[in-house]
């Protein structure tokens, strides 16, 4: 268990973070500038905390305000950055062996990451995806106590991103160490992580395994960025590219992406994209209509209201103009239909125990 309880001040930006990272993958999520990468730098030992401490399994790595600071090279950390930070004048084999801390990378790591076929290649000849695979192999070669992944997918093109995501989905579940995965992507977080820590404006605002943490509900966020997550199971995938997803006894149609029949998935509904209707509308191009009941209403800005709609076991937020809510005479307990387009949805397969079996 990696535990952080610290503050840090860099210029006018302050970080206050208290979080636990157990063995397994924890997604560190939050908007740009939330302090995710800064926290990772402090954990790695590249920056020092102003106060508080970092500890791994009870052993203190750093304590702010004291001279207690385990040097970066002695923390046995594997780290993959957003961009490939490899020695451009060396081969892949050289770059991986640098991470092995005097030893050599095991054949299993080289095979698993697909680097065994790249060993003699110069680094400059690698594609973006290959370079990130080499970075991962280097990070694992030193048998790290903690693995830090700082947005390793964000600089990749679509195909490379898919390859590296699949690689991470294969490799990460096998690691019995704390893995912190910084990402902006809800899909990547849902697919790869079992725990979530959300940061906003330098603070940890939520943590845990609940999907609400991933959705950012309850956090002080801009209303335009409010979303809800609905969990379901893929009933079928049509040749048209749409997946029919069962949510309770209702069905959502969404772009299938990489999900497969029978898979548990999570669907993200953006509050700004949802329409409320008092009766089931007809003749609309929008393919989805979920029946729910208004569970609560509150003002959200001078002219806007946030309506909470209960759909089976899920609470879905909807943003409407206050005048609209008055005209429709919306009230708690009222049955309403949520209408939305398939293309407005984000769907991600949930991490399942099967993933670890690859």
């Amino acid at each position, binding site marked *: 268990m990696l535990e952080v309880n610290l503050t840090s001040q860099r210029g006018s930006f302050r970080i206050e973070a208290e979080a636990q990272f157990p063995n397994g993958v924890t997604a560190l999520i939050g908007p740009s500038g939330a302090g995710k990468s800064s926290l990772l730098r402090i954990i790695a030992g590249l920056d020092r905390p102003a106060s508080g401490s970092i500890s791994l399994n009870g052993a203190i790595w750093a304590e702010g305000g004291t001279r207690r600071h385990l040097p970066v*090279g002695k923390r046995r950390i594997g*780290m993959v950055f957003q961009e490939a930070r490899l020695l451009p004048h060396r081969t892949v084999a050289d770059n991986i062996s640098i*991470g092995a801390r005097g030893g050599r990378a095991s054949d299993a790591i080289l095979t698993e990451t697909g680097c065994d076929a790249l060993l003699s290649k110069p680094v400059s000849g690698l594609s973006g995806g290959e370079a990130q695979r080499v970075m991962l192999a280097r990070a694992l070669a030193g048998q790290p106590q903690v693995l830090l992944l700082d947005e390793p997918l964000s600089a990749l093109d679509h195909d490379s991103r898919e390859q590296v995501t699949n690689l991470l989905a294969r490799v990460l579940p096998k690691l019995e160490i704390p893995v912190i995965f910084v990402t902006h992507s809800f899909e990547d977080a849902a697919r790869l992580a079992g725990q979530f820590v959300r940061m906003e404006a330098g603070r940890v605002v939520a943590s845990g395994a609940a999907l609400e943490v991933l959705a950012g509900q309850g956090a002080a966020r801009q209303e335009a960025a409010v979303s809800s997550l609905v969990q379901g199971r893929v009933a079928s995938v049509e040749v048209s590219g749409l997946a029919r997803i069962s949510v309770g006894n209702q069905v959502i149609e969404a772009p299938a992406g990489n999900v497969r029949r029978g898979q548990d998935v999570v669907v993200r509904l953006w509050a700004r994209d949802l329409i409320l209707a008092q009766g089931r509308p007809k003749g609309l191009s929008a393919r989805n209509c979920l029946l729910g009941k208004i569970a609560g209403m509150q003002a959200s800005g001078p002219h806007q209201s946030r309506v909470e709609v209960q759909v089976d076991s899920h609470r879905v937020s909807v943003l409407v103009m206050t005048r609209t809510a008055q005209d429709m005479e919306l009230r708690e307990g009222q049955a309403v239909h949520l209408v939305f387009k398939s293309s407005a949805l984000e769907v991600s397969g949930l991490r399942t125990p099967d993933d670890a079996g690859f």
Partner: protein
Amino acid sequence: MNETAEIVLLTLRVAAVGVGCALPVGLVLSYVLARYSFPGKSLVSALTMLPIVLPPVVTGLVLLDLLGPRGVLGEFLAGFGIVFGFRWTGAALVAGLVALPLIIRPMRLAFETVDPKLHEALAVAGLGRFRRLIVLDLPMAWPGIVAGLVLGFAKALGEFGATITFVANIPGETRTLSLAVFTALQRLDGTEMVWFLASISIAISVIAVVASEAIVERMNGARRRAQNA
């Protein structure tokens, strides 16, 4: 030995020993100035440039007062058998000193181009400062190091003012090519000798610069071939 050959060999020896001694100093200073921030960094940076902006005669004068036979340090060092005043070793010291700014400048620029993010990544991977210097900084900065060496060597070959002030113009001991040209100029019948020696001086300088360009180009070519393989 032919007098001209003696002058050329002495000049090469003075320049080579001077630059050879200045190289480790230049490497350390350029690396520290490129990689670290510390109080007084601007002052240290300015001091390293001093030999190139100070009038050479003043440089020679300062050295004479410090390290000459009656200099503060000169008398002390003489007790250990180390003598610079009016010796070729003094000429080498001057050569190294005036070459230092030209050695440091390109090396510092080369070290500054090494991405600090690569340093961080290697530090996380467990590499200490010295290993990072070996596997990252030196290979990446190599062309700048060669350029600094050649520029410094060329400067050392042509040093005149500080040398003649500090170690005088003693045939066979401190009379390098530049001083020999100056000596020949003083003679009414020395025109031919002046141009002969000047031609040798030009030839050595040109060969040094061309050789360094060839070395750098070859290294860059090898790197490009490795990257495109």
